[in-house]
């Protein structure tokens, strides 16, 4: 498990403690379902997804490949017609008034491919502002600001096809924001960016949420990005929501329960088997005259039970360290559990309801 101290710091520190949470719900998804085909050949991509997002929140939608992330996001955006369920953005029901929804929403779904490469950076911003119903002339000041923020001011009059991949990605995001929106959907926003560009983009996303109250919904496989930027994550698996919690809360739950234990001597097979079986011990390593292993426990008291097992077997305890997990550990654990322990429909509904 990686140490959280190695990770880049959140730009505004602990966002949840510095910002008063906005109460206005800007995106509400209720029992969203999408199936392809019919009868025995039917494939369910989204299976009763529900969540709400408030203004100025940054929410990560995570899930393994095939979990239904893209279909969920495209269904919310109307690019895929959902089989059932409802989506409301900024108080507008998507089923009743999709055009009304698009007055509030921008999306970057194709990364750097979102813009016209034969136009200049500024021409792209102007075109997409007009496409969104804005007056490109009136939005010039905003565009200048975006160009400055994304370090593109010097490239404003260059055609996009001459820019680097990272710059194209930034142009794409700037074009999404060019018309001014309440909610922005971003699919893999940092894909292909170098470390510096990725950090800049993360800072910009936080600033948009904190200073302009823009709601950001992003999907990414880069857990560092999600952990740095997001206030909350919605984890999908097999088209269902299996976790919907603040990042700090998700990581915090693990923080107090994961330990690295070092005991003297080599553990016998029987002791090792008992620890693995009863206490979810993993990563057992024998190091010369000592044994090291990681253990994730259901509650703090269980640590004493593990130490008791070692003591009974005649092993002295040399060291115990609390492990600080990152979001990737949480994600892997949550999705793994979802696959290992399929719940009944009722249990799943209860769990989802509880985490909202």
């Amino acid at each position, binding site marked *: 498990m990686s140490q959280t101290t190695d990770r880049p710091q959140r730009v505004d520190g602990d966002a949840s403690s510095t910002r008063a949470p906005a109460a206005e719900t800007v995106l509400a998804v209720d029992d969203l379902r999408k199936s392809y085909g019919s009868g025995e050949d039917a494939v369910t991509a989204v299976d009763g997804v529900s969540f709400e997002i408030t203004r100025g929140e940054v929410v990560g939608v995570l899930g393994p490949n095939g979990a239904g992330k893209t279909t969920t996001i495209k269904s919310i955006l109307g690019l895929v017609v959902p089989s059932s369920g409802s989506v409301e953005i900024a108080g507008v029901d998507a089923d009743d008034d999709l055009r009304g929804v698009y007055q509030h929403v921008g999306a970057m779904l194709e990364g750097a491919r979102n813009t016209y490469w034969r*136009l200049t950076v500024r021409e792209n911003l102007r075109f997409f502002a007009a496409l*969104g119903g804005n007056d490109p002339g009136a939005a010039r000041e905003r565009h200048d600001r975006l160009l400055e923020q994304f370090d593109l001011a010097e490239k404003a009059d260059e055609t996009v096809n001459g820019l680097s991949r990272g710059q194209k990605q930034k142009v794409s995001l700037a074009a999404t924001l060019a018309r001014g929106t309440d909610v922005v959907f971003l699919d893999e926003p940092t894909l292909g960016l170098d470390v510096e560009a990725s950090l800049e983009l993360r800072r910009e996303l936080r600033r948009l949420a904190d200073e302009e109250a823009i709601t950001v919904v992003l999907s990414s496989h880069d857990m560092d990005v999600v952990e740095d930027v997001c206030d909350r994550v919605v984890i999908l698996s097999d088209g269902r929501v299996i976790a919907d919690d603040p990042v700090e809360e998700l990581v915090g739950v693990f923080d107090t329960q994961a330990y690295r234990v070092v005991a003297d001597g080599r553990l016998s097979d029987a002791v090792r088997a008992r620890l693995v079986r009863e206490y979810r011990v993993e990563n057992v390593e024998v190091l010369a005259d000592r044994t090291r292993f990681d253990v994730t426990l259901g509650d703090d008291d269980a640590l004493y039970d593990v130490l008791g097992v070692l003591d009974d077997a005649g092993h002295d305890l040399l060291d115990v360290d609390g492990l600080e997990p990152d979001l990737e550990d949480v994600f892997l654990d949550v999705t793994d559990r979802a696959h290992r322990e399929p719940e009944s429909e009722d249990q799943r509904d209860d769990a989802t309801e509880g985490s909202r």
Partner: protein
Amino acid sequence: MSTTTDDARDVDVGPRGFLRFFGASARKKLLLLVRYPVNTISQFGTVLLVFFVLFFGGRAVAPTAISDSIEGIIVGYLLWSMSITAYSGLSWGVTREAQWGTLEQLFMSPFGFGPVMVVKTVVNVLESFLWGAGTLLVMMAVTGRWLAVDPFTVLPVAALAVAPAVGIGFVFGGLAIRFKRIENAFQLVQFLLVGLIAAPVADYPLLKWAPLAQGSQLLQTAMTEGVRLWEFPAGDLGVLVATAVGYLALGYAAFHYCQRWARREGVMGHY
């Protein structure tokens, strides 16, 4: 509802905003024509080259036949080149937007996908008129046959004549959204348009209800015989308007159906 924190967030989806978007689309088209002159010249050159092959080649093989029918060839070729520009602007346009990754952006416009495509189509039709004027001038200069070009007659008749081609463009644009790789079908349609423009409406009156046929017939009459718009029989103009509106509406409905079909299947924007 939304909190406006920036004047640039003011969204106007009324006529003024729509006009602004039309201006932005026309500007984009113009910028690209000027910025890539080699592409622009080769596009225009190809149209002329095909005509030169047709005219000089035909004159070498059958000089009398070409000489007798040169006016028809000029008008027919003019309408064909304009129809191709208008039609392919939609069908190839959708394919290219899907390849570029911008199709979904166009769909998510608060103006609606249909109106956005209509704006793009109007810009394409205007472009086709631009090329048409240039092509006509060169064709008349090269052949030495100067036709009647009364703008009050030629422009509305040509616009109504091209409208069914736009309708066909909408159909194939919709099919491109749903099925993506249908470029071979696009090319076949170009030959189909030749047949429709050359349809013998005088011999087979029912053919006037086919796309482009009546428009081609009336444009020939207007430009070769100097007949003015108001001198045409009302019935002929009625058929022209009915076919223009009918095929355009049918094409637009098919486009709308196909985009919804594509969204149901989850393939909008895929390529």
